[in-house]
């Protein structure tokens, strides 16, 4: 048991290191020297934190470019608010050929997503529009955990019924 607990603790720390990952393709486009694929998770995108991952390839050869500088900017498609610019990195991605960044979209609606890719003298900008649904209720992410007590109580009731039937407990 103690070994299991030690392993579980180690695992918890290891899991904390993992971060963003792929998701669904929301843009695949070539411009300048780059071919860029942008992934967004979760799908459909909901208001709140979303993972944005970018794969940069050489437009001619398709070879993955790991050392490109990738910045992601979002603003409401309707305009008004200032654009929020963030830097995507491979460290924040589970899939290390992608460059990821978690960005916060506070409200539902259409959001303009701009991806700036540069490498040496080469620079390109890619634009797409994200349709963001309203945020899911906080309980939606933990509904399975809310089911745990009733399920455990049901299993325990069955356990007791089996014991009563087997004559190990008074009925």
């Amino acid at each position: 048991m103690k070994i299991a607990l030690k392993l579980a603790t180690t695992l918890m720390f290891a899991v904390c290191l993992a971060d963003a990952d792929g998701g669904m393709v929301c843009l695949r486009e070539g411009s300048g020297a780059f071919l860029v694929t942008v992934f967004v998770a979760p799908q459909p995108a909901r208001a709140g934190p979303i993972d944005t991952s970018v794969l940069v390839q050489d437009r001619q050869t398709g070879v993955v470019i790991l050392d490109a500088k990738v910045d992601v900017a979002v603003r409401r498609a309707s305009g008004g608010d200032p654009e929020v610019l963030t830097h995507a990195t491979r460290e924040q991605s589970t899939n290390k050929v992608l460059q990821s960044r978690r960005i916060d979209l506070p409200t539902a609606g259409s959001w303009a997503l701009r991806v700036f890719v540069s490498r040496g003298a080469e620079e390109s900008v890619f634009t797409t529009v994200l349709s963001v649904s309203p945020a899911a209720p906080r309980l939606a992410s933990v509904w399975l955990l809310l089911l745990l007590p009733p399920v455990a109580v049901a299993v325990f009731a069955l356990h007791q019924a089996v014991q009563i039937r087997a004559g190990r407990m008074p009925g």
Partner: protein
Amino acid sequence: MSAVARAAFASWAIPFWPTLGILFTAVFYIRGWMALRQLRSSLLPTWRLVCVLVGLASLWLAIASPLDAFASFLLTVHMIQHMLLMLVAPPLILLGSPQIPLLRGLPIWAARDGLGPFLNWAPLKRFGRALTHPVFCWLTAAVVLLAWHIPAAYDLALASSVWHGVEHACLFGASLLFWWPVIEPWPSKSHWPRWSIPAYLLAADLVTTALAAILCFSDRPLYPAYAGAARLFGWTQLNDQVAAGALMWVFGSTILLSAAVVVTLRLLDPSPAVRKPQNEANSWSRSTQPSRPPFDVLRVPIIGSLLRSAYGRRAMQATVLLVAVAVIVDGFVGHRMGPMNLAGVVPWTYGRALVVAGLLIAGNLFCMACPFTLPREAGRRLGIATNHWPHALRTKWLAVALLVLFFWAYETFDLWNTPFLTACILAAYFVTAFVVDTFFRGATFCKYVCPIGQFNFVSSLVSPLEVKIRRPQTCTTCATHDCLRGNEHHRGCELQLFLPQKAGNMDCTFCLDCVKACPQDNIGILAVPPGRDLARDPFRSSLGQFSRRLDVAALALVLVFSAFVNAAAMLEPIVSTVPTTGLGFLIALVLAPVLLVGGATLAGRCLGHSTGPTRELFCRFSLALVPVGLAMWAAHLLFHLSTAWSSAWPVVQRVSSDLGIGWLGAPHWRGSSPILAADTLLACQILLLDLGLLLSLYLGWRIAGAYVTQIANRLRLLAPWATLLVGLYVAGIWVFLQPMQMRGMVHG
């Protein structure tokens, strides 16, 4: 290796729950395997252990390795993942005959009391037999394989991580069933003659081959999800599809046909060595096993020696004393802002959380390392500690009052943000401990006065470790009772706990004086089922029966209700509408518990036709609420630890800078991101509350069984308590769904 390949191989993603499940399975299997090997070495040869471990490792590789990260880019990679899940991991795991070793590896109470009734339940046995029937197994595997390769289903799995997990679970589960009749893991019995198994495997190969052929010979891409995926290695989607089909064809057929050949060869081999030792295996029973002693911390190398050594506890106390002195000094002379002062950060952000974590993971570690008892030693040297604590005060009532007073003061004076007052309280603690223990015999301060100690005593009734005797029969021949009275070398228990009659951790400071005094080396820190002692009501040394201790019940209720009051007091809607007054706290921590618990007692007694005394029911059921209260404390303090985990370092830098030590650098007062993301934190909090609720309900059920025997009456007696518990659980979840004050943090 190219940079891209290196990046690809570095793309590991560790899924928490599946990995935890695999780890626990491996640990329980190894424990069971070792126990069975001791019983009969020929029963499970080493190769079976290797098979299980390699099978589990391949399962983990499939879901955690870069295969998973690249499954959405290349069908071929996804196919490799599926091959591991269907053709590698399941047969290897089943070759280890995992049922009995896993059962044997579980804690005895879990195997015997938890799973035992189900394993002997006839309907479940029939269900298991139907589930492992070759026809069902074959059809399930075929249907699952084909269904998940329908383009719509396949694309659904690629679009959603949840469905991707469901797909993998289906493939792995169906494959376990498929391989069951082939391998017939001991002690399962075959439904069909063994000669039918090669045909079973060949039929499966036909299905696999047909599916592989569709993938290979289709002239168009079958899975639209891959159409938009980046082509990482220059393959077209169709090339990728053909490669995946070829892989399925070759690898699948190789495994299935090899298995058919092995089974056939064994059928043809007349040697008895290849026959399963059914009779020998089935003669095994749990009753023949030697009983396994419980886990004992004092038997653990290094840790055990350290704890038993003369200076083990002193070292811990000295460390905590140094921290306490630093907190007091900084509280008096340091920065006035709580988040920038040791007295604002150490006790309220870290101290409380670590105390509760220690209680949940081990036991009463705070009292073990408590520095407040050090003044007692100094006071004793004066030789005037000869008085007895007044009889009227030999209860927990004084501590109950002090706890309520403390919780009121915490909110009224914003102690978390008032370092000076925090330092005053800590200094007062040292002075009180010194004064009380200088004039009164024994550990009077710990037993009757210290509110922190009482909080820990009640909470540690749920802890998984307990200081207790190892072999009861050894104590029956003991006439000196050194654990209580001490001897010329070591003192006995100053809290008057006689170990053979000690039950649970109440009043135990984990000082280990009894361990050192026992001449038979018969006392350890043993693993116990958490909360077990809350369900029983034996006579307890120095405490009597809990069912007669109204003061202990009151202590438990203060612990439970203060958890909810303290957390709710951080919510803006509560702070802005409810004034923090002494009367309010009396209502919340005294009147409300008495009314709710008293009402539940009377209602349960009436509904359940119980003849048990009302006071006794009140006392015993009050203690059943402790797990949910402790869970609320843990969930609440986890929030503080997660959000303000980095707050200590800049404070340490500030203190060192004030002292003229510059090499730690200048403090950077900025908020850092929490350890746990908001959703993960909420999930952890709800999981803690779930576990607390379930343990409280279980304890209530056990206690109810002590008063009424009829199931219907037992349920009626429990019903009001269950309602109260669910109400507390819902209140806890509501609290955690609200935005909380960021106490103990510097913003911006």
